[in-house]
């Protein structure tokens, strides 16, 4: 086939490419003119402008569309000596400028507003493992130790209030007492305060919820994906109409389901079955089934066909071939993928919690909205610890499996 045979179809395709290019270029320019100079223009004119300039451009013989469809129509000049070369450079530049404007990139804020992140930073360096509070009995204890009346009175004001860490509590005392009194009575007050691990308990409970949520989502996804993967493997499906239809159907649905993020599934299911770990589990499960089906079936497609043929030649049935020649070849990569998936699911489970999927993610969201930065700090540490250890374990196990 000669590349530059002139035909209407390629000519039109070239023109369309030019038109799209110029529409984009004028669109970007208009965006900047509108945002920066307040220019207002009817879209009709913009389209006309694009059509006009692309037509003109096309005729010059220096157009992108023509370059693409009739390469030999262009002179063999170096790109930087051509109009289209400079236009592409210009359009890349303008894309960057428009992008900068749209994303509201602001280096000034990045360097000057760091103190806004002070809350979360101090939270991370001082996570609330032990909470402090003063109760009536603490005050009674302090009275016995002959603390001045006015200090007891002052402390009464904060009795019952919960402080997330020792430091936070001390800072409150520092604010309420004069320096001398603070130095003198800090120790007995701290000693008599009631300590609790409420937040830690709660975080650990919801963390367990998250881990089990991820585990269950993975475990429930395995058999489904396992069965589906056999039907989604090209080399196993018979080359009949039915076989092909099943293959295409499963592959397509899996691809669509996988391209919808788990977080979107969580939103759907939190409306469907209500906010909580069940919604989160369903979201992760659906996503896992789709992802594992793809990974598993690709693994099947990559197996050595030799043993499969050999077993077929013994007169084995299709199911026997699967069991004796296919499964032994895929079992260890399957396990590796599955463990990796659980690892991913644990991470995802916290994020899914943010949008109604329950678990520690939900707790993190609540604490963040209450601005309890020390609690947030604790939660972040716990999540990091779990993710880190899952990462280690899964890497170790996968390394072992690959030796098998």
């Amino acid at each position, binding site marked *: 086939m000669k590349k530059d045979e002139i035909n209407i179809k390629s000519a039109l395709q070239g023109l369309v490419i030019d038109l799209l290019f110029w529409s984009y270029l004028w669109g970007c320019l208009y965006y900047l003119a509108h945002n920066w100079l307040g220019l207002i223009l009817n879209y009709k004119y913009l389209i006309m402008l694009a059509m006009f300039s692309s037509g003109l451009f096309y005729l010059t013989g220096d157009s992108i569309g023509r370059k693409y469809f009739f390469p030999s129509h262009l002179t063999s000049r170096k790109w930087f000596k051509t109009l289209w070369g400079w236009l592409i450079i210009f359009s890349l530049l303008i894309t960057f400028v428009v992008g900068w404007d749209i994303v509201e990139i602001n280096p000034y804020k990045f360097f000057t507003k760091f103190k806004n992140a002070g809350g979360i930073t101090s939270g991370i360096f001082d996570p609330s493992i032990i909470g402090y509070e003063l109760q009536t009995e603490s005050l009674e204890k302090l009275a016995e130790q002959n603390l001045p009346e006015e200090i007891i009175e002052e402390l009464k004001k904060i009795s019952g209030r919960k402080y997330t860490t020792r430091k936070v509590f001390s800072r409150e005392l520092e604010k309420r007492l004069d320096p001398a009194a603070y130095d003198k009575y800090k120790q007995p007050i701290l000693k008599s305060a009631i300590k609790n691990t409420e937040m830690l308990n709660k975080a650990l409970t919801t963390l367990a919820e998250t881990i089990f949520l991820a585990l269950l989502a993975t475990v429930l996804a395995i058999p489904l994906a396992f069965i589906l993967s056999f039907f989604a493997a090209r080399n196993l499906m018979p080359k009949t109409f039915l076989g092909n239809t099943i293959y295409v159907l499963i592959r397509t649905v899996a691809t669509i389901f996988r391209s919808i993020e788990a977080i979107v599934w969580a939103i759907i299911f939190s409306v469907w079955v209500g906010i909580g770990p069940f919604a989160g589990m369903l979201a992760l499960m659906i996503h896992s089934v789709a992802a594992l089906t793809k990974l598993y079936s690709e693994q099947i497609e990559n197996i*050595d066909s*030799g*043993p499969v*043929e*050999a*077993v*077929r*030649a*013994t*007169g*084995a*049935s299709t*199911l*026997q071939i699967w*069991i*004796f*020649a296919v499964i*032994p*070849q895929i079992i*260890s990569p399957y396990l590796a993928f599955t463990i990796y998936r659980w690892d991913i699911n644990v991470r995802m489970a916290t994020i899914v919690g943010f949008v109604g999927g329950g678990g520690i993610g939900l707790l993190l969201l609540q604490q963040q909205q209450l601005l309890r930065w020390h609690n947030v700090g604790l939660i972040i540490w716990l999540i990091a610890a779990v993710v880190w250890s899952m990462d280690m374990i899964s890497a170790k196990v996968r390394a072992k499996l690959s030796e*098998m």
Partner: protein
Amino acid sequence: MNSLLNINDLHKIYDSGTHALRGINLDVKEGEFLILLGLSGSGKSTLLRCINRLIEPTSGEIIFQKRNIVKTSGKALRTIRRQIGMIFQQFNLIKNLSALTNVLTGKLGYVNLVHSLGMTKIKEDVITAEKNLDRVGLLEFKSQKTRNLSGGQQQRVAIARALMQNPRLILADEPVASLDPATADSVMKYLGELNKNDNITVICSLHFLSLARKYGTRVVALKDGQIVFDGSPREIDERKFKDIYGEEAEEVEIR
């Protein structure tokens, strides 16, 4: 002698358009050790794989024990396949299973699904499998994963697997092509022994004339999908050899 396999006007045209077999007629007698010779691409593998229907012939018939293999399907095809053992150049063992389990898979055509799942625990089957491994001298390797065995050992496990089928016919597609000459000969010895002692008919494709002369009772040569020679191994002289392999070919002696 009785005819075991009768191939009439067999053609194979691949989807790619390659006409790999152009009217093969072949009558294989019981007890023969038939050597298939031919250049690479002459259609040896295609012919062997048509016989047990690993690939579908385009036209023609293959009569095995009074049944036309080309016309059978499903259970009937599997009943025929189980009587035909197959040996491959690449051994085609399931590498992460033990030698014994690999041999046991030779039994699959005879048993139902439930039985096959428990096969490694069924005494009778295990004893037969061990007997077959012993015949190829590998009993002590029975619980080794076959990936840890040498090429020659793997091919012997494959022979034991074929024996497990209790076959009337063994198809061997270049069984020694990936082995060194000494090992190649020892593997061929096992095939020759089965042919003599168990009266198993063997069709074996080879590239070495010396091995063909040593073990074959009959030689069939293919060229461009057609039979260009059919006779006794002794009949192949310099002239015939050049007909089969082309003028430039030199005979390579091994052993």
